[in-house]
Every structure is written in C-alpha cells, then in structure tokens.
C-alpha cells in the first residue's frame, strides 16, 4: 500500500448484548483526508465511528472482537489509556454541546484538565483553535462571554475549536451539521475542507450531498456490514454494488 493509513479496522465485530451491530469490517482510512460514513439509520456507521476513540466502552453489554488500529497500534490493548487516546482522537457531536462556561474556558477545557495553566499558552491556544475553526473573527471581542449565547452554528464551530485545542491528529464527526441551517452547514463544510490538510477526518452523515461535497473517500454501511468503500467520486458516479446504487439514488427498500 503506497498511501499512509492513519486508522484501520481488522476483522471487527461488535455486539450490543445479542445484537450484532458490526459484522466483520475491514477498512483502512487514509491520513490527512476526509472519509465519510453513510448508510441508513441503524446501519452501524455511528457505532463504528465511536470505536475509534472507545466511546462504546461504557455501554452495558457492548463487546468487541478484532483490532482497531491508530498509527498501526491497537487502541484496545490493555496498556492504552483512554484519556491519552482521546488527546489524539477528538470528537464532535451532532448537537453542539458547549459547556456552560465562557468561550475562552470552553476552548481551554482540555488543557486545564491536562494541568496547563500558563496564561500565554492558554491565550495562544484559544486564538489558534478559534482561527482554525473559522470562529475567531466573530468572537474575538467576547471571549469571556458565555458560550451559550452563541448561535447554533457558532456553538458547533466552538466545539470544533475545543476539539482542536488539544492538538489531536484525528477528528471524528458524528453528523456535525445536521442540526444547523444551510449557511452554518456550508461554514462547517468549508472548515472540514480546510482542516483536512492537517487532520485525518472521519464524518458520519445522513446527508449524501454533504458526503459528496466534503469527503475524499466514502464508506457505505448497511445492516452492520461495510458494503462499499471507495473514492467519493467513484462511489457517487459509478458505485460497484447494487445496494449502494439503490441507497444513494434514494431507491432503497
């Protein structure tokens, strides 16, 4: 393989109790590129995404087989500390979830937990992260106001800034724009396009057009299986599997 792979799954199966949610998935995700996971509700795409930063660990009855690799290292090995893993792998959720604190404190939250208290470091991190998240210009004069006063789209970019503040290498996004209006959505999408120069991004989306616009690669999931994974332009112009074709053209079921 000539391209470098940041994340990979080898023969991964996962269960919630008796429910077999992920069925024998093998996949490798390219570094500094955007991969979109698409598929109908309940197909396992979010479950699969959450495996990459061990978000399923504390769910009762959850069981995993196979390997999830970050930089060729199995992140489910006993010696891996989850808090260390999450410094590498940031996550952004569907609903913006800023803490009820100031904008500034939201961004530096991760650093404070790590024990960083130097004012200069914190200030620099806030500016860098907010700039990366394309929010700086809008909030630079009100950094010490409550984050909850921001609009939904701004809150979501703040959550992205918060994830970027701890300098991860991977960014997982679970429907990051589905609760936003079209203008905020475009901002998030343009942001993803910018960020992929520096980060490996995986995005789960119900919006097929969004997958088309932002991703380099797309993986289509169905009933816990990975049906097709290819370059986005290939998948959207000439999918190999009939099921993929039916899904993306809206002729499903």
């Amino acid at each position, binding site marked *: 393989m000539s391209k470098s792979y940041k994340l990979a799954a080898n023969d991964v199966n996962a269960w919630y109790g008796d429910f077999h949610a992920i069925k024998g998935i093998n996949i490798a995700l390219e570094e500094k590129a955007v991969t979109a996971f698409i598929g109908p509700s309940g197909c396992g795409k979010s479950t699969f995404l959450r495996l990459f930063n061990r978000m399923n660990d504390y769910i009762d009855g959850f069981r995993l087989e196979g390997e999830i690799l970050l930089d060729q290292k199995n992140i489910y090995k006993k010696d891996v500390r989850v808090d260390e893993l999450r410094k590498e792998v940031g996550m952004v959720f569907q609903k913006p979830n800023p803490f009820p604190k100031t904008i500034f404190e939201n961004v530096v939250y991760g650093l404070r937990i790590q024990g960083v208290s130097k004012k200069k470091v914190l200030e620099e991190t806030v500016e860098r992260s907010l700039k990366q998240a394309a929010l700086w210009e809008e909030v630079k004069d009100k950094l010490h106001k409550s984050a909850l006063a921001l609009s939904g789209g701004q809150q979501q970019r703040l959550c992205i800034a918060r994830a970027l503040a701890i300098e991860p290498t991977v960014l997982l996004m679970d429907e990051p724009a589905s609760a936003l209006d079209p203008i905020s959505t*475009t901002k998030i999408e*343009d942001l993803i*396009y910018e960020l992929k120069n520096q980060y490996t991004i995986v995005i789960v989306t119900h919006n097929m*057009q969004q997958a*088309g*616009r932002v991703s380099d690669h797309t993986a289509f999931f169905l009933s816990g299986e990975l049906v097709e994974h290819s370059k*986005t*332009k290939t998948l*959207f*112009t000439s999918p190999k599997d009939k099921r993929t074709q039916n899904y993306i053209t809206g002729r499903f079921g």
Partner: protein
Amino acid sequence: MPHIDIEIEKLKKKLMEMWDLVEFQLEQGREAMRKADPEISKEILKLGKKVNNYDVKIDRMCENFFALFTPVAVDLRTVLAILKINANLERIGDTAEGIAAFVKKLEGTLSPELIEKVQVEVMYDEALKMFDDCRAAFMYNDADLAKELIKRDHVLNKIYRKSDEIVVSYLEGEPDKIKEGLVLLSIIKKLERVGDQVSNIAEEIIFYKDAEIVKHKKNKEKR
C-alpha cells in the same frame, strides 16, 4: 474561497487549457494554408488526440462535479455551460483538423489572386479574432461581448455565401486549378462552421451569465 468555487475554478482552468490547444490548432491551420505546408498539417492532426483527451477529462470532471456538489442556480448553469462549451471546443478542434487535412491535398501554394478574391484570409482572421474574443467573454463573464460575437458571425457567413460564385468564375479562366479551387471552398466551408461553433459557445456564456436562452432565436432578436 468556498470549496465549490475552488472546484469550479479547476473546471474553468482545465477548459482554458483546452481552449489554448484548440486555438493553437486553428492558428496553425492558417499557417498551413498560407504555406500549403503538409508538415504543419501533420502537427495539427497529431494534436487532435490531446484535444480528445481534454474533452473526455472535462466531461468526467463535470460528471463528478454534478454528483458531488449537486449545484444549483448560477453554479448549475456554469457547469452545464462548461459541458457544452467543451463539446464545441472539441468540434472546433476537429474543424481545424479538417482544414489541415484539406491543406495536405494541395500540390502548391494557393494563388494569391484567388485568395484575394474570395477573401479567405480576411475570413480566417475574423474567425480567429472571434474565437479569441469568445475566450475573453467567457473569462470575464461578459455577456455583452458574447452577444456581439453572435452578430459578428454574419461576416463569415457573407464571405461564405459569395465564395461559390467567385471560385466558379475564377476556375472558368483557370481550368487546371480545379483541385485548388475545391480545396479552398472546403476550407471556407470549415471556417463558416467555426463561426457557428463560436456562436454556440457565446450562447452558452449568455445562458450561464444571465440565464437567458438565445439559441434558436432569429439573429435579429439576439440583442
């Protein structure tokens, strides 16, 4: 720049590269005709392959763009226009190759007297100028220039319509030059096609800029 604009710029850039190539073919066609040079003709014909590759590539890029960006409004019209302009450019390239193929049939340079009478060089220069202006209209989204181009097509049509009679009467006096006369008429016919193809492109520019449909209108209505 928003991502969608970056992608549209890529498409336009690719189209401009193809435009350069086709313009080169057309310009060389004029040289080949003037010197009756089969070597230049060969070069023009050889470039055809490259133009075809661009044609396929741009079609492909447009297809991907539609699939990935589901464009609307001006974005949609722009890419539809690029798709059609691409097809017309490819045909202008073919036309230049057609001219090259006719030049290869020439056994010597065209008679200066005949060239003067039928005004083929005037026609060729106007076709080249129209093609060049058409590029400017596209690059600067200049619908007014595009409309003007459609009107200028009549200059070529006029020379074309008169050419039969002029060549026939010339050949009556020079019966041994029948072959030369036929080649010249064929080239003139090709140049008349270039005018039509440039007009088609101009119509697409007006369409994407102003969402106005001017094709199939009578010339007088194309203001």
